[in-house]
């Protein structure tokens, strides 16, 4: 059985650990709230995390289509980019998967099988690839925030300019 099948077989256990690990980057009492992840509308953060992580996991195993993974990455990073995290903290959730996957596999000594090392390296590289996409997405989100701020400031200046012009109009 190759690595991907091994991981697929352990999908729900890995996803749960991954989600919990991400949830634990929040304060104690918040993480327990996030873990009620199925309430799509009353707990949007928890829900989005859980959906996004599952999407990423599937993509890693079934072949990464950049446009698809970017949607999942975006949904998670868009939230973390405005929460109280530093950039590195915001994106750290991706790397958590490396360790969790090994923990899950390690118990059954799957890791000793021939060829597994190469497959693991490939798996790690895919995760690294996700991380690279994430940098772009994170920057986009932050830039968007600054753009929104600037837009509001510009709108206000624009109003002032318009107002000034109006006064001129009236004096004509």
């Amino acid at each position: 059985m190759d690595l991907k099948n091994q991981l697929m077989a352990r999908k729900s256990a890995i996803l749960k650990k991954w989600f919990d690990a991400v949830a634990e980057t929040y304060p104690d009492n918040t993480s327990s709230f996030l873990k009620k992840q199925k309430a799509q509308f009353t707990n949007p953060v928890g829900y989005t995390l859980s959906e996004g992580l599952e999407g990423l996991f599937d993509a890693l195993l079934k072949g990464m289509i950049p446009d698809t993974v970017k949607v999942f990455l975006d949904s998670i990073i868009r939230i973390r980019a405005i929460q109280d995290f530093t950039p590195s903290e915001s994106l750290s959730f991706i790397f958590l998967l490396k360790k969790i996957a090994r923990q899950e596999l390690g118990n059954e000594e799957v890791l000793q099988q021939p060829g597994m090392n190469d497959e693991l390296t490939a798996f790690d590289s895919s995760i690294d690839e996700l991380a690279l996409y994430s940098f772009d997405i994170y920057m986009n989100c932050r830039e968007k925030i600054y753009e929104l701020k600037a837009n509001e400031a510009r709108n206000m200046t624009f109003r002032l300019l318009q107002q000034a012009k109006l006064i001129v109009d009236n004096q004509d």
Partner: protein
Amino acid sequence: MAKLPKPEELAKVDYTPPKTSWMDTPVVIKEGMFCHGAKTKSLQTLGFPNARDWRPMDADWKLPENWKEILLNGIADRLKKYRSFQLFMDICVRCGACADKCHFFIGTGDPKNMPVLRAELIRSVYRKEFTLAGKIFGKMAGARELTLDVLKEWWYYFFQCTECRRCSVFCPYGIDQAEITIIGRELLNELGLNIDWIAGPASACYMKGNHLGLEPHTIVGNLEYMLDDIETITGKRIKPTFNRKGAEILFVTPSGDLFADPGTYTAMGYLMLFEELGLDYTWSTYASEGGNFGFFTTNELAKRLNSKIYNEAKRLGVKWILGGECGHMWRVLSQYMDTWNGPADFLEVPKSPITGTVFDHAKSMKMIHVAEFTADLIKNNKLKLDPKRNDHLTVTWHDSCNTARGMGLLEEPRYVLKSVVNNFHEMPEDTIREKTFCCGSGSGLNASEDMDLRMKGGFPRANAVKFVHEHHGVNMLANVCAIDRASLKPLMDYWVPGVGVCGLHELVANALVMTGEKERTTDLRGEPLPSAQAKEEKA
């Protein structure tokens, strides 16, 4: 191969969850989460105490010597004046039902944004100073000293509450965090600790009649721009009147609609509708603000700003008042205005001159919401509507907090909306009507410097919009609130790109077939109409 960093460690750098009890976790004021302090000049204009320039990030807030005394006296005074405050200080059982109902808690994950804990910030001091148990048992009874840290915590968190009242819907005793925030902000205001985004508009409104500080000639000029656009679109030149004595109706709307897109399209909608009806109405430049940023400072200032509406109605000798689309404006009007500045016995019970309907439910306050007015028109078949003109839009409805939970205006706008658009989809049940989620920018928090806060607080709302956007192709978020129109736009830009924001009467005017109009090719925004496009393609 280089050794990989340990991610679980990385994730926790500089981010230790509060292991200490909330009382022992001092506030950390973070960039992007607060608004600038109020300017000296604004506070002076309004006659507010302790006016000074100060900065929230500075350690020294330049407080008056006796700040503690001022606050404690302020609390004592309000306990005697407001049963709500006295009661809400005493009866909370900390069941936690409200905890996860707050959009700021959901979005920020900050435990002090749980409504119960935000109230405990002030309740703990109340216990210490005003209850026997608190005086004797201190911390064991949940009491704590009022310190500078506590004061900063109040300021930080009372300006992270939009007074939306969602928590009070779920509270078994109806404890309303909005009420506590309102009083908390009054107390802070006594120390000059207001924010610029509230004090600035409030002082502009006091002197010039509206939040934006538009002077009379500018209001006229701005409307002229809109009239030009209306002429381009419909071929009709409208001539509204201002400050006209003897008009039947005084029209008051939030000034945001006069200045910024997409609010201006809503204002164009009013102009077109009233023109088509031949309504005998007037705008006022003196009472040119429906909203009330005074409500976010003190009860007294709210009353002072609000007084202009009745005073102007009296001066002009109108029969009744029609109010535009706004959220907190209508909380203030329907639950406060008559008590503050009534009785308006010089006015008549509002009666639609078109349908003859008498709006008995407004017989004391003498003012009705434009959604009620239009719903009545449509019900009586007084408008010729072509909803197909809105076929390029798939619309969902955002209930504004204040009209939903402080008034109960739920069906009227929906009735109007369904009459003027063909494609309408509700958002999920737990996010609309009395359970609606706030835009995250209400109660004067729609500044630009607190954009992070606004995006977090608005996330639950945006998330529900995203759902109908993805499942039903919704591309327009309609509402009856000026702050919504201004603040949902960036919210959508960030979370759900591809969804626009509009007021109800923009859609009404799109669908409204006016007598003698030319064939319309665009909607109010200048976007080509689907029918016109189809025709072009045919030709």
